[in-house]
């Protein structure tokens, strides 16, 4: 019952506002998830604003020349790492619903000397890309933020070419629900 206490629009607004307002240093998050070798490839501006929950890139089968979509790119840490792996013959499309995040990702890519990163403003439930246009979709701590998860995953399937892969790190919960006071706390929808 607790999962239905907020409307989709309320959830979307809470998440948007929380991410827009986030201002703290989160380098410790990056150091928990990524190896020193990986972090050495990423500008400090992106490392210091990491908000992912896992390191799915260890399992993503990205090949040189691939087109990769980073769904909810945030400050760009996964985008930068993926762009190194696609190489200059590939590209990474960094999607986020906040222009502020896209600006951070673009600045990090420029600082890293990568010209194979493109930023896209949009919602994960309506990805502004043609069908079957990407080889790999990455997502790190983002699907749980969607009030329409089935729609978001269907959009991932739509933009992937047949045989393409989704590689996602996300928060999951066990069957026992968290207390309603936690589930309905506004910050719990973003954190």
């Amino acid at each position, binding site marked *: 019952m607790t999962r239905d206490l907020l409307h989709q629009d309320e959830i979307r607004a809470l998440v948007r506002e929380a991410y827009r307002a*986030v*201002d703290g240093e989160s380098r410790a998050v990056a150091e928990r998830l990524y190896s020193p070798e990986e972090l050495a490839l990423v500008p400090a501006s992106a490392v210091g604003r990491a908000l992912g929950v896992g*390191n799915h890139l260890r399992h993503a089968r990205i090949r040189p020349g691939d087109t990769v979509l980073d769904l909810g790119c945030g400050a760009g840490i996964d985008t930068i790492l993926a762009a190194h792996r696609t190489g200059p013959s590939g590209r990474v499309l960094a999607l986020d619903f906040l222009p502020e995040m896209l600006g951070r990702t673009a600045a990090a890519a420029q600082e890293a000397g990568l010209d194979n990163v493109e930023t896209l403003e949009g919602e994960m439930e309506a990805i502004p890309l043609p069908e079957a246009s990407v080889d790999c979709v990455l997502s790190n701590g983002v699907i749980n933020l969607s009030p329409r998860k089935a729609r978001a995953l269907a959009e991932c399937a739509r933009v992937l070419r047949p045989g393409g*892969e989704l590689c996602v790190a*996300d928060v999951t919960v066990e069957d026992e629900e968290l207390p309603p006071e936690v*589930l309905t706390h506004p910050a719990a929808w973003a*954190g």
Partner: protein
Amino acid sequence: MAGALTERDFVGKLERAGFSEIEVLERTPMGIADCELYPLFTEELLATMRRLIAPERLERIAVCAVIRATRS
């Protein structure tokens, strides 16, 4: 994490979206100490979690799953 699915529901939604060869490759518990690393968790929320979540569960409030799936 209020919007997080169970792993079973996540996999089910992937199947219904048209994915196959779905593999859960990593499962990493997330406890209150991990939540404290994220500026998205406010002090008020963290205090609420400490107060209302059973102490034995505070080390495993959620699980980070890494899942890979293929577009059929």
